């Protein structure tokens, strides 16, 4: 039972999400019959299964909602802003109910009661209707659910099968047809005996039978055709049919002239077809009328499908079919694949020293395979950024109302895919950025009109690929960032000198300083101190970067640059003494030999493009004497618009590293963010550029 409960919760969460989507859609058009119908249906489904699994309050709430939308659907009342608000409110409560197993905290309990009372106002003639609608609806509603299942699951085919007389001498075993059809689905048939001759004319090697066959299958027409692979085109015909369209299906009636002339009547077939239809319940008389209507509808849809080529439709469906997998299982798979890749490179290294062509070939194949395996497995974790949109939509909707602003939300590239772990971590930062845009950037309608802007502001979400990265941009057409204000504030906070000359970009970067907020008044919404610095940290933690660009009075855009996946990175392999250090390639600008004037003493800064940049000598931290190796290499890295020089003893080459997190005790290590096992089984450390640079900055500031 617990298991079922978990399933129910999972399903319910999905439905609630769907509801949110539909609600936001319906808000643009209160007359959208289709969406209203959908809301009603989802509420109904929720009510039904909530009752079944003992979620009483959930059932009560959804029942009330269902009533409201039932009335709207039937034209007895009108959808309004208030109802949408009420529904959204109920969704929040539903989520909480699910989460807490209906053990609501006191505050939410009161909210639920209030909501239930408010909801009554929107159901017309409630007392009179309730009992009636209750019984009626469960009947028709359940049926609808069944019907949906039915049409979604399988399809009927009629097959006229009339092999030629010589079929046996062609080496074909007819019985295999029936065995294979049996595997495809449930079927029945009637033999065609017309061609069977009188005993005196009977030739034992000849074949005289034929069949009218009916099959209900989840398979496609192609799969059925495959059963008849060895038969000639004129020996079989496959026609998709529905029990209801039997009389109207032209192809079918043409092909089954045989049937009509015989004892088997069309009605007989119909009833047998219907008997095959799964979960078809016997209906009460009362429902018969509704039933008729539905038959007509189904006829129409069946015809529609016919026009669209039912087979293609079926195929499309198959290709888009998905299954649900527990995230932890997926993570386990990725872990195993990473181990495989690691061991594989070990095997590669070992086999290099063994002269055996067969072994080398085999190892090569394994390497290829495991790389494909890895790519495939990683792809499993990619999900479209679309899943983030909903939350943003909801936030914009609620907030803009609260703030008295009008905002349109435009999205682009929502199919762009990212690792699910990144998506999960992105939610917070993105919502924060949106909150900022709404609160600080987008002006009140009045102010906008004074500045000759349309009263309705625009927030744009854009996602796209570029190389091994995904870019996400949040743009708004608000008032832009006033660099003067930033400067004043920074001076006030003692972050910069009053007369320091900073570029626009450097000023924007100040926004990422802890505790920096330019909002003149702290509103309920933003400017609570947990600002952009947290956002930046979270983005950096997933090896991403964040950039702000703005044009005063025109708008602001915040750009996130994110890696496609967290578990594999391209690195440059280097050595510092005996330690192998991997430096993520994405930060590296170039590498060069050292140009120290004094070979015994490292300078604090080196020249890069005629600018002095700070030097970070890794060796100093590994070797207390700090001897400078003769050919010490300098690697220029860039963080945002600043360059830094990191020194290493030797550069080995490029290396694709499978990232393993550091152990618990080392997770706050000041330089490294992870490790990786190399081909020879030894360990390499992955340098965290963000960490090491901020470390360097602190050092510089304190000295």
């Amino acid at each position, binding site marked *: 039972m617990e298991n079922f409960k978990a399933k129910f919760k999972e399903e319910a969460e999905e439905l609630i999400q769907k509801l949110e989507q539909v609600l936001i859609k319906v808000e643009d058009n209160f007359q959208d019959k289709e969406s209203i119908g959908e809301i009603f249906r989802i509420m109904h489904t929720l009510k039904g299964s909530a009752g079944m699994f003992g979620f009483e309050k959930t059932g009560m709430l959804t029942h009330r909602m269902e009533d409201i939308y039932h009335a709207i659907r039937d034209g007895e009342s009108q959808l309004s802003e208030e109802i949408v608000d009420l529904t959204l409110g109920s969704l929040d409560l539903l989520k909480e109910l699910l989460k807490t197993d209906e053990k609501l905290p006191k505050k939410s309990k009161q909210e639920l009661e209030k909501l239930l009372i408010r909801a009554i106002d929107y159901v017309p003639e409630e007392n009179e209707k309730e009992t009636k609608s209750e019984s009626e609806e469960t009947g028709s509603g359940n049926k609808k659910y069944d019907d949906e299942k039915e049409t979604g699951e399988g399809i009927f085919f009629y097959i006229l099968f009339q092999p030629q007389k*010589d079929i*046996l*001498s*062609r*080496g*074909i*075993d007819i019985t*295999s047809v029936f065995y294979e059809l049996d595997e495809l689905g449930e079927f029945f048939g009637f033999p065609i005996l017309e061609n069977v001759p009188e005993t005196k004319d009977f030739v034992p090697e000849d074949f005289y039978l034929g069949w009218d066959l009916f099959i209900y299958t989840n398979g496609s027409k192609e799969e059925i055709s*495959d059963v008849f*692979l*060895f038969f000639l085109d004129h020996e079989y015909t496959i026609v998709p049919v529905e029990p209801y369209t039997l009389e109207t299906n032209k192809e079918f009636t043409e092909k089954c002239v045989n049937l009509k002339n015989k004892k088997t009547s069309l009605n007989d077939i119909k009833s047998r077809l219907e008997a095959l239809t799964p979960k078809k319940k016997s209906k009460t008389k009362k429902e018969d009328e509704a039933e008729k209507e539905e038959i007509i509808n189904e006829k129409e849809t069946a015809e529609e499908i016919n026009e669209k080529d039912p087979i293609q439709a079926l195929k499309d469906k198959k290709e888009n079919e998905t299954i649900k997998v527990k995230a932890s299982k997926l993570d386990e798979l990725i872990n195993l694949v990473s181990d495989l890749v690691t061991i594989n490179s070990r095997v590669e290294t070992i086999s290099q020293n063994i002269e055996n062509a067969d072994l080398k070939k085999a190892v090569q194949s394994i390497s290829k395979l495991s790389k494909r395996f890895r790519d495939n497995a990683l792809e499993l974790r990619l999900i479209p950024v679309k899943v983030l949109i909903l939350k943003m939509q909801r936030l914009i909707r609620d907030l803009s109302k609260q703030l008295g602003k009008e905002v349109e939300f435009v999205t682009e590239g929502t199919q762009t895919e990212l690792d699910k772990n990144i998506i999960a971590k992105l939610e917070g930062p993105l919502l924060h950025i949106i909150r900022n845009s709404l609160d600080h950037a987008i002006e009140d309608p009045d102010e906008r009109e004074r500045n000759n802007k349309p009263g309705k502001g625009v927030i744009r979400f854009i996602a796209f690929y570029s190389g091994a990265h995904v870019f996400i941009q949040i743009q708004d057409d608000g008032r832009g960032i006033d660099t003067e204000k930033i400067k004043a504030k920074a001076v006030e906070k003692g972050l910069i000198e009053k007369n320091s000359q900073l570029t626009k970009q450097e000023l924007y970067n100040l926004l990422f300083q802890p505790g920096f907020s330019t909002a003149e008044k702290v509103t309920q919404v933003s400017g609570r101190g947990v600002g952009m610095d947290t956002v930046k940290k979270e983005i950096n933690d997933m090896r991403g970067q964040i950039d702000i660009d703005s044009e005063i009075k025109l708008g602001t855009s915040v750009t996130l640059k994110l890696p496609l996946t967290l578990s594999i990175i391209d690195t440059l392999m280097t050595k510092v003494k005996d330690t192998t250090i991997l430096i993520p390639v994405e930060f590296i600008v170039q590498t060069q030999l050292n140009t120290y004037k004094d070979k015994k003493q490292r300078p604090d800064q080196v020249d890069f493009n005629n600018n002095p940049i700070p030097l970070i000598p890794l060796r100093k931290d590994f070797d207390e004497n700090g001897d400078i190796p003769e050919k010490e290499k300098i690697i220029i890295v860039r963080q945002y618009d600043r360059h830094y020089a990191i020194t290493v003893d030797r550069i080995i080459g490029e290396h694709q590293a499978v990232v393993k997190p550091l152990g618990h005790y080392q997770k706050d290590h000041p330089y490294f963010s992870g490790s990786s096992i190399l081909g020879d089984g030894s360990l390499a450390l992955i340098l965290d550029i963000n960490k090491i640079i901020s470390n360097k900055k602190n050092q510089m500031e304190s000295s």
Partner: protein
Amino acid sequence: MKKRVVVVDDFKNTRWVVEFTLKNENLEILSAENGKEALKHFDGQNIDLLITDLNMPEMDGIELVKEVRNMEKYQFIPIIMLTTERNPQKKQMAEDIKVTAWIQKPFKQDQFKKIVKKALRI
């Protein structure tokens, strides 16, 4: 018991490709360069499938099929005709002499495997 398949083609490469395609199907493959040689395999032992080329020296595919179908033991065995032949007349002829399936060379491995497995009912 392993199913036994006779593969006949005068071109060594084709025989090799057929064997390669079927190598994982756990079959015993007997090959021959032409019809005459192939007939030697039909000596009373169980044969489950004949895959043969159409145009071959000594004895061509059509004649081979006729001979095989004439033997009582092999009267109903499945036969796959494998050929580059596009001449419709010849194709009609092969149909007349009753082969189970007809595969045009060059063939797609998957399709070929599917047909063979179906003919063998594996």
